[in-house]
């Protein structure tokens, strides 16, 4: 674990340099602990695959003092009672107009549509991080046989609920947006609702299983 300065009001904590469940769980543990402290100096926390970035209020505390404070508390992190991950089952309509890139994925992977769906629904995915748009879960790791590159030219509009593949990740668009993931299906599950708390269905570290709708 290494603390780095990121701009004037950022701390970048590096836990590793890979997409890896153990590293990601360490990020999650740290993030959960820090969040539970509810520090007024913390503006935002951005945990992800292998790092955790803290946006702090540089008018309230200096980088050096803040890192000193964080370092002093490191020993308490392992004793912290971390929330049990929730398992979410997400129903998906695969292919057809719900999955406009299914044809490409079939030709790229040389698998049939059924084999692709079987592979996509047979893994229990980890929510490595949430971002890109509110509530969008970065899920991994995809079965290697489903590896596909991103679209060369991103789509201008990807509909809300679209389920996509990109390299060894899969994700769910929570809002209509431009995007470059290969879309293989669509879900009606509500992953983010800005009108009601808790706004976000999933938390980092939760598990997701896709099922045929």
């Amino acid at each position, binding site marked *: 674990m290494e603390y*780095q*300065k*990121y*701009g*004037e*009001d*950022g701390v*970048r904590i590096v836990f590793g*340099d*890979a*997409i890896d469940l153990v590293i990601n769980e360490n990020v999650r543990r740290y*993030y959960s602990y820090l*969040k539970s402290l509810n520090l007024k100096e913390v*503006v*935002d*926390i*951005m*945990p*992800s*695959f*292998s*790092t*955790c*970035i803290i*946006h702090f209020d*540089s008018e309230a505390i200096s980088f050096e003092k803040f890192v000193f404070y964080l370092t002093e508390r490191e020993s308490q992190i392992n004793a912290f009672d971390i929330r049990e991950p929730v398992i979410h089952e997400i129903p998906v309509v695969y292919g057809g107009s719900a999955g406009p890139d299914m044809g490409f994925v079939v030709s790229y992977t040389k698998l049939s549509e059924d084999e692709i769906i079987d592979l996509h629904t047979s893994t229990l995915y980890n929510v490595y*991080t*949430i*971002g*890109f*748009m*509110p*509530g*969008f879960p*970065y899920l991994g790791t995809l079965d290697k046989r489903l590896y596909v590159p991103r679209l060369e030219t991103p789509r201008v509009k990807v509909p809300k609920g679209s389920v996509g593949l990109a390299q060894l990740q899969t994700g769910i668009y*929570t*809002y209509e*947006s431009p995007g470059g993931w290969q879309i293989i299906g669509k879900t009606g599950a509500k992953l*983010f609702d*800005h*009108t009601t708390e808790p*706004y*976000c269905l999933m938390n*980092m570290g939760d598990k997701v299983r896709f099922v045929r709708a």
Partner: protein
Amino acid sequence: MIEVIHPGWFSLIVDGGRYGYADYGVPSSAALDTFSYKMLNALLKNPSDAPAIEVIGNDFSLRIGTDMTCAITGAKVEAILSGELLQPWTSFRAQKGSILKVKSIFEGFRYYVGFSGTIGIEKIINSYSTNLECRFGGFKGRPLMKGDRFVLKEPREEKPDKIPVENIPDMKPPHVLRFLKGPEMKYFSPESLSRLFEKKASSWYNVSSKSNRTGIRLEGEPLVFKKDVEKSIISEGILPGTIQIPGDGLPIIMLHERTIGGYARLGVIIKADHDLLAHLKPKDAVMLEMVGPDL
């Protein structure tokens, strides 16, 4: 009641930002020029988190339905209130039935219009700011349009006030943006970085017309990646003002609409220059100047 007669090129409701939910991917969508936003509310004697209108382009025009005090800060504009010329960065009384119109902009890009009272909209996730991509917050989650009407809650008339001219920031191009080293600066070839730091004509960039509220794109000499590095990173958190370099080598300065990014981060614009980012217009000349102890 306030009615939008003309929304300018683009106008939307903002505040100081939607913080505390970045771990769920919620960006701050804050006013881009913080100082102008704060001074607007100070002129109006409003709470520091009152909603305001952020506008680009001229012809922005409102019909004022109640006696109140209004103010304009940010880009220096030529504005008139029922025929009378207004000074930039001042507050002024507006009578019921009067028309406020911004005729032209003579320095800067974004300006802020506010009223003594509270624009009658609901906070979404603790903020009035509009999240344009997800269409929530602000006025119905979208930019203002001709004919939109909103209520001004508890309108007040305050004594007209002004920000002294010497306190109004310079917004004229060319712009020099100072930055601190970013986590992936080592991804770039030494020749490419020294070219950036030479401060010759070739190290000036121009603001691309593809820039938007998510990021400012620069056109000019591309940064060159070292041969042995990946051009993208495992996606991770980003802060406002981060200079991302995608595969084509052309910088994108991220504003307040993303919490995570997958491009190499050359640097972070220093906070003292963040407000200036609001005033970068397409074609403006921009120089990136590295500062700090890591130089």
